[in-house]
């Protein structure tokens, strides 16, 4: 079920809001919300509800045992069991087929034929997101950062709550445990108002901007040998599309959270105005990059274990970060590319600090443009289904295939693309807006939402649903 679908907007959401706000019994409300979230998930494939439930049960039990464990050995044992279970599920459902294909490709190239069985495993929607959330919970309980969930219902809701279930923001149990204690009996109109504005802004980003740009760029995607113009038209459009699509989804998710009285974390903070690659990762998919930082980078030693270890850690974290996005070598390459950029950036900082590098830092705008270019080149890898396509785009972008059809650049001069560029340059994230309730704003929001609904043109999933 998509947020940008009739069934969600006119059936699911109103029923859920009523079921959440009308009853007075808090346990009943929580149970209804869990049920609604499972119905939401079942809208895609009911069979995988069992898998999500299994993950939930296992991590709930493991965290409880960790908290009650009498010896460090016992506690560690349960943590390892939880990690193996979660990562095992992720490895099987997301990566088994991919690794089998990769092994067969290598074997084929060596003339050995297919040596691994061909696996066609359906990727359960949202598994990367809820597995990371579940992992963070058991690790936080082990570290003593989080207390074990007070009730199974609380924990079920933390894993399954529908606004963030499929594509984040990736939340942590510590974010919601206090909110359970503060749940209100009556609608919090201030939060509801925030929720409406966030949701409408997200919808505009998705339906009026991302989908329109995608639609105009779609015919270009099939160009066999893109030249300079086509490559920039394709990657430039995708740069706009992925931001408006994913940040639109995140805004909608946060807005829905507010409507239910929950506060979810910010996931985007104008990433394309970053002035270095490190800052980009502080602004792009924030909850994911912080997850990587807190549960991978820092445990590996972070940046306090020497320059080389720091670089290794950055590289490794981004390698895994790339792999997290999808079972494809292009995603791995994208992660490695960003790991390399981060390595170069941190090396230059270290060298500058030690006085080895004396070149002045780039001025703000030049740094911004350079960072943006680096990110855009990365999207060429990210959007490509294989290395041939990626290489075609990258070589096209540097002009190795000639100028190509300059008229294709029109896709970046389309009014919607121009609006998107202006938005990126001048409009703060909705988090920074003064969300003061005003009737005229409400009228505008209603009109814009109706326009979005009129523009819904069929099934248009979010890009990050595939991860």
């Amino acid at each position, binding site marked *: 079920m998509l947020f940008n679908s*009739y069934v969600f907007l*006119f059936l699911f959401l109103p029923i859920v809001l009523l079921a959440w706000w009308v009853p007075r019994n808090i346990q009943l409300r929580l149970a209804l919300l869990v049920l609604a979230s499972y119905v939401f998930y079942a809208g895609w494939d009911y069979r995988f509800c069992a898998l999500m439930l299994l993950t939930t049960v296992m991590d709930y039990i493991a965290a409880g045992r960790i908290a009650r464990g009498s010896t460090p050995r016992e506690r560690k044992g349960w943590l390892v069991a939880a990690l193996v279970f979660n990562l095992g599920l992720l490895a099987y459902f997301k990566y088994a087929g991919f690794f089998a294909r990769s092994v067969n490709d290598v074997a084929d190239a060596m003339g050995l034929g297919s040596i691994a069985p061909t696996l066609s495993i359906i990727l359960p929607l949202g598994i990367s997101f809820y597995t990371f959330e579940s992992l963070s919970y058991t690790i936080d309980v082990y570290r003593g950062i989080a207390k074990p969930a007070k009730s199974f219902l609380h924990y079920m809701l933390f894993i399954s709550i529908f606004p963030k279930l499929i594509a984040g923001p990736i939340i*942590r149990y*510590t974010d919601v445990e206090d909110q359970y204690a503060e749940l209100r009996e009556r609608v919090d*109109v*201030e939060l*509801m*108002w*925030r929720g*409406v504005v966030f949701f409408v802004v997200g919808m505009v980003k998705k339906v009026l901007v991302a*989908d*329109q740009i995608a*639609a*105009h760029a*779609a*015919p*270009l995607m*099939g160009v066999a040998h893109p030249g300079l113009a086509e490559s920039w038209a394709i990657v430039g459009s995708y740069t706009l599309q992925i931001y408006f699509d994913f940040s639109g989804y995140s805004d909608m998710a946060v807005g829905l959270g507010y409507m239910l009285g929950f*506060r979810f*974390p*910010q996931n985007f*903070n104008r990433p394309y*105005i*970053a*002035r*270095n690659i*490190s*800052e*980009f*990762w*502080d*602004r792009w998919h*924030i*909850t994911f990059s*912080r997850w990587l930082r807190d549960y991978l980078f820092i445990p590996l030693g972070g940046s306090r274990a020497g320059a080389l270890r720091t670089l290794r850690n950055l590289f490794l974290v981004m390698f895994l970060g790339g792999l997290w996005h999808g079972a494809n070598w292009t995603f791995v390459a994208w992660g490695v590319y960003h790991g390399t950029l981060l390595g170069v950036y941190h090396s230059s900082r270290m060298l500058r600090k030690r006085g080895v590098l004396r070149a002045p830092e780039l001025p703000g705008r030049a740094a911004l443009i350079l960072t943006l270019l680096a990110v855009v080149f990365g999207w060429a890898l990210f959007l490509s289904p294989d290395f041939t396509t990626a290489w075609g785009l990258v070589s096209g972008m540097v002009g190795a295939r000639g100028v190509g059809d300059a*008229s*294709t650049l029109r896709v970046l001069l389309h009014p*919607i693309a121009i609006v998107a560029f202006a938005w990126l340059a001048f409009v*703060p994230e909705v*988090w*920074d*807006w*003064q969300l*003061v*309730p*005003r*009737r005229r*704003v*409400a*009228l505008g*929001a*209603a*009109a814009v*939402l*109706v326009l979005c*609904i*009129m*523009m819904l*043109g*069929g099934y248009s999933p979010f890009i990050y649903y595939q991860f």
Partner: protein
Amino acid sequence: MHRGDNNRWTSSQPPGAPGTRGEYSPRVHAPPPSSPPDSAASALRTFLIAFVGLLAANAAVNAVLNPSGELRDGGLLIESVLSSESHQKVADLRDFISARAGAPVGVVLGSSRVMELSFGDSAGVAYYNCGISGARAEDILAFTRFIFAQPGVHLAEAVIGVDPFALAVPDDSVEYGARLRGVHPLERVMGDRIGLAQRWHWRAAALFGRDWTTALREIGDPPVKQWFDSSGIYPEANYVRRVGTSDSSRARYLANHIEMVTTHLPPSPESDPRRVEDISETVQLLREHGTRVTIFLPPTHPSLLAALRGDTIFRAQIDHDRRTLQELAGRTGAIFVDLTDPAATGLTPGDFWDGYHYTSAASVRVIHALREAR
């Protein structure tokens, strides 16, 4: 507030604070409110009332303009009324048929390239033009089913113009969806103004490109309304677009269309089997009701044709469509006329408004060719 930091992520320090990764530019905050805010409850009430009201208005417009609910949207009232004028056409068609209660009527079915065909009231048969922009086989079938669902209809004649893209494989739905969702809604509402804006854009481009001759020529470019009379009976209900008529404007329209059509070439020479099935069902349905059917491929601008013939896939697609329609006509007793080559009707580049659609004057020759074939 979320952990006291303006609803942000739960970091102990807000992003951009000293000591955190990355250095942020100064944050942009909206100015403080200039007048006292309304209460959140009142804003929410306004939102809900306006939202429901606007949806209801949209639904009401749909209910009036899309009474059959058969075209494109499967009957969803919420679906945009802006996406196609087919809704308006079908409403007018219903009135047209009921006004003639049992008298024989004829229809012209197809895309914008049949909109100019006005058979008038010939041989005691009054014609209604059902041409809609970007019509595919399924649209033509939907119109036909709708016609026969009307009480007392006596459809004597149907002329069906089949565009090369009407039978194309589903991949073109991406392109079609793109136009439907991205361009058409705006064009439907602002078609006239978009035409105007486009021409001013061209003028400015010529001016800035120091192409003084073109700039001067296009400043005095007299516009005309395209498809002014496309339904034959309710001209105000039609999609009207102002197009420039100077040679320079026409050349630009032509270049635009060649680029658009060649960019959206079908990915394979095969037709979509479902669409072939739809067009077959259309013709069979018409023939079962005793309707005389003429299927034709509309004339194409010589330059566009030349550009398309350079592409083997498109050529194969045209040949495939031609064979399919010929076979269909032979099987059902319909008449098939191939007017793709403008030489067949004696049309010259000057007979096309915009590189793709022929003028009213040229349509007389197309009608003549179709009558000859019958």
